[in-house]
C-alpha cells in the first residue's frame, strides 16, 4: 500500500469520526490515546489473570476451605508449602508427571518427524493419508481415554490381542499393572498428539527452499548429510515450538488420564494435575491446593523460560 493511499484512508476515517469524539480525542496526547486503546485489554488481563494469581498466592498461606465460607481464614505462614515439599506422595506425583512428559515428548518427536518426512515425499494419496493421520488430535481427550480403556481390556481388547500375536504373554493387563500403566497413558497420548507434531514439522519441511537441496546435490551430499545439514536445522525451530506447546499441555494433563486410569493402580499414574484437582475440588483444601498450584506454576514457568531461551538461540 502506497503512502498516498494510507493518507487518503486516514482522511476518510477522520471525516467519518463524529465531531464530538474527534474533539475529545484531538485533545489527547499520542501516549494517552495509546493507553486508551490498550486499557480494556489490561483491565481484562488484570481481572482474569493477574488478580486470580495474586489471590491464589495469598490463599496458599492460609487454611482457607472454599466449601466452608463461614469459617475464619487463618494465616498459617509457609505451613502448606512445608507439608507439600515434605510429602513423599507429592514427589511421587511429580515423578509420574515427569515420566509422562519426557516419554510422550520423546516418542512424539521421533514419530511426528518421521511421519512428516514421509508425508513430505508427496506420494499419491498423501493428502488423504495426512487427513487420516490428523484424526486422533481432533478427538476429545476424554473420548480418547475412554476408548483406549476398551482397547487395553486384557481379555477382549485389541492391544492385548496384537501383543499376543508376537509374544505369548496371555491377557495383558495394561491399566491394572503398576509396571505397564505408566506406559499405557504414554502410548494413548502419543497416538493422539503425534499428528500435531507432524503437522508443525510438515510446515517446517514445506518452508525449506528447493534450491538448498539442489545446491547440496551439486556438492554431492548424501541423504544423511542433506538431512543433518539442511532439513534438521530448518525444521528444528518448528519442532521445538511444538515440543514447548505439547510439553506445557502434558504437564497439565488431566482428562485423558482420568478417563483411562483414574490415576491408578494405586497412585501410579496420578499426575500432579489430577492430585491438584482432588485436593482443590474433592477434599476442598483450598489453601493447600493453592500452594501446590503455585509450585506447579513456578515449575512450568521456570522450565518454559529456559526452553524459550534455548529456542531463541536455535532460531538465531
Amino acid at each position, binding site marked *: 500500500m502506497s503512502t498516498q493511499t494510507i493518507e487518503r484512508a486516514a482522511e476518510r476515517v477522520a471525516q467519518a469520526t463524529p465531531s464530538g469524539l474527534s474533539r475529545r480525542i484531538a485533545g489527547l496526547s499520542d501516549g494517552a490515546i495509546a493507553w486508551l486503546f490498550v486499557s480494556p485489554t489490561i483491565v481484562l488481563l488484570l481481572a482474569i489473570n493477574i488478580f486470580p494469581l495474586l489471590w491464589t498466592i495469598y490463599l496458599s498461606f492460609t487454611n482457607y476451605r472454599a*466449601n466452608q465460607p463461614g469459617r475464619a481464614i487463618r494465616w498459617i505462614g509457609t505451613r502448606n508449602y512445608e507439608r507439600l515439599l515434605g510429602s513423599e506422595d507429592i514427589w511421587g506425583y511429580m515423578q509420574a508427571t515427569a515420566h509422562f512428559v519426557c516419554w510422550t515428548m520423546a516418542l512424539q518427536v521421533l514419530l511426528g518427524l518421521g511421519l512428516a518426512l514421509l508425508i513430505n515425499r508427496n506420494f499419491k494419496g498423501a493428502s488423504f493419508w495426512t487427513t487420516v493421520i490428523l484424526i486422533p488430535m481432533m478427538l476429545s481427550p476424554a473420548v480418547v481415554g475412554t476408548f483406549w480403556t476398551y482397547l*487395553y481390556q486384557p481379555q477382549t481388547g485389541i492391544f492385548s490381542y496384537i501383543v499376543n500375536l508376537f509374544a505369548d504373554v496371555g491377557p495383558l493387563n495394561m*491399566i*491394572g499393572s503398576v509396571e505397564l500403566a505408566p506406559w499405557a497413558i504414554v502410548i494413548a497420548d502419543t497416538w493422539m498428539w503425534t499428528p500435531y507434531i507432524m503437522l508443525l514439522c510438515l510446515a517446517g519441511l514445506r518452508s525449506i527452499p528447493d534450491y538448498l537441496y539442489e545446491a547440496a546435490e551439486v556438492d554431492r551430499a548424501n541423504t544423511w548429510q542433506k538431512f543433518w545439514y539442511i532439513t534438521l536445522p530448518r525444521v528444528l525451530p518448528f519442532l521445538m515450538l511444538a515440543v514447548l506447546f505439547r510439553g506445557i499441555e502434558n504437564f497439565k494433563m488431566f482428562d485423558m488420564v482420568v478417563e483411562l*486410569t483414574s490415576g*491408578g493402580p494405586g497412585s501410579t499414574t496420578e499426575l500432579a494435575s489430577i492430585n491438584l484437582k482432588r485436593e482443590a*475440588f474433592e477434599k476442598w483444601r483450598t489453601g493447600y491446593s493453592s500452594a501446590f498450584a503455585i509450585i506447579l506454576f513456578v515449575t512450568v514457568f521456570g522450565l518454559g523460560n529456559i526452553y524459550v531461551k534455548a529456542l531463541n538461540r536455535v532460531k538465531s
Partner: protein
Amino acid sequence: MRVLKTCAVAAVLTAGVVNGAYAQEKEITLCWAAWDPANALVELSKDFTAESGIKMNFEFVPWTNFADRMLNELNSGGKLCDLMIGDSQWIGGGAVYGHYVKLNEFFDKEGISMDDFLPATVNAYSTWPKGTPNYYALPAMGDALGWVYRKDWFARPEIQAAFKEKYGRDLEVPKNWDELMETAEFFQGREIDGKKVYGAAIYTERGSEGITMGVTAALYAWGFKYENTPGKYDMDGAVNSPAAVEALEAYKKFYECCTPPGHSDAYMVANLDAYKSGQVAMQMNWFAFFPGIAKDEAVGGDVSGFFANPRETVEGSTLGGQGISVVAYSDKQEEALQYIKWFAQPEVQAKWWKLGGYSCHKAVAGAPDFPTSTPFAGEFLKAMGSVKDFWQEPTYAELLLAMQKRVHDYVVADKGTAQEALDKLIEDWTITFEDDGKI
C-alpha cells in the same frame, strides 16, 4: 378489527405468562444418582404429581460423578435441587454447613415419626450429630453391600463333586470370608459351558469410593472400628488393629487370586457387567441392584441367588443407601416438604418397595411377609441388621479420598504392607481432623 386483534394477542400472551408463572411455581427438582432405583422413583413420583399438581423434575448423575457434582452444587449454594437424595456420609456436612433444612419441626407438625422407620436407617441417613434426635433427612432408600452368586452353577452335580473332592465340604452359600475365598478360588479359571470363568467381581475402583466400600466389607466382618472410644477420634489401635490388618490382607489376597484379569478399577457397573456376561461366579454389589438382577433375562429367576456379606469374626455389612433432604438454598421448600410428607406415607412406601426401591418404613420392611416377598428381601434385612457406615463427618470427602489412595496403593498397586497402609491412613485422617479442629 385491529383493536380486537390486539386484544386477542394480549389475552393469549397474558394467559401464557400466567400459565408459565403458575407452572414455574408448581414444579420441583429432585437430585439423585443415575441408577435403577432412580427410575423406580420417577415412576412412583407420578402419583405425587397426580395428587398435588406439582410437576417433578429429576437430575440424575452417574455414581462416579455423583458426589463430585452434587457436593459442588451444595457447596456453591446452588438452587438446582430442591430435594436431594444424598449419600449417608453427606449428612454431617449437610447439617454443619447448613446445606440441609432441619426437619424436626416439620416432622412434629405433620405427625411423621422416626419410630416408624428402621432404627439403623434413621441413625445412618437422618441424624446429626449421630445418635441425637436432630433430623436432616427422611430415610428414603435402604441399602447395604451384598453378594450375588450363580445358583445354577452351584447346583450342577459335576461342579459340586469337584468342589467336595477339593475342599471336603459341600458347595453352598459361603458362611464366612474364608469359605467365600475358597469358593471364588474354586471357580477361578474353571471352564463352564466351554467358557473360562472367574471367581468373583469385587470393588476395586480408584476414582470415587469403590475400593473403600469393598475393603470395608472385609474390615467390618473382622470387627473393624474407626475409633477406640466413639467421638474421641483416637484411631491408633483401632484402624490399624491386628484384625484390621488381617482383613485388608484377605481383601488383597481375594483380589489377586480370584478376580477376572484387568479387574483393577471396577465398581458397580463393571461388576454387574462381569456377572451378567457370565464371566464370574459371584459378584459383590449393592442390594439396590438386586431387583434388576432378579428380573434380568440372562441371570434372573432361578439362575441367581443372593446373600448378605458373610461374617468372619462378627456380622458386618457396608452401609449404602440415602435419606431425602430439603436443600436449604431452594426457593421451593414448601413444595419439597410436601413431597417428603407424601413419600413418608406407608402406602407410598409399599409401592416404592414394589417398584424396586428399598423402603425403610417398618410397615413395609417389618411386615411378616417381607422376608419372603423377593429372593433377596430376607438377606437385605439380615444385612441391615449389622450395617456399619464410613465416617459421616463434614470432612468425609477428604477422609474417603485418603482411604481410596491408601487401600488402592496396597491392594491393587502392591505397595507396602497392610500395616503400613493403615498406619498411613491414620496419619492422613489425623491431619484432616486436626485441620477441622476435632483433635
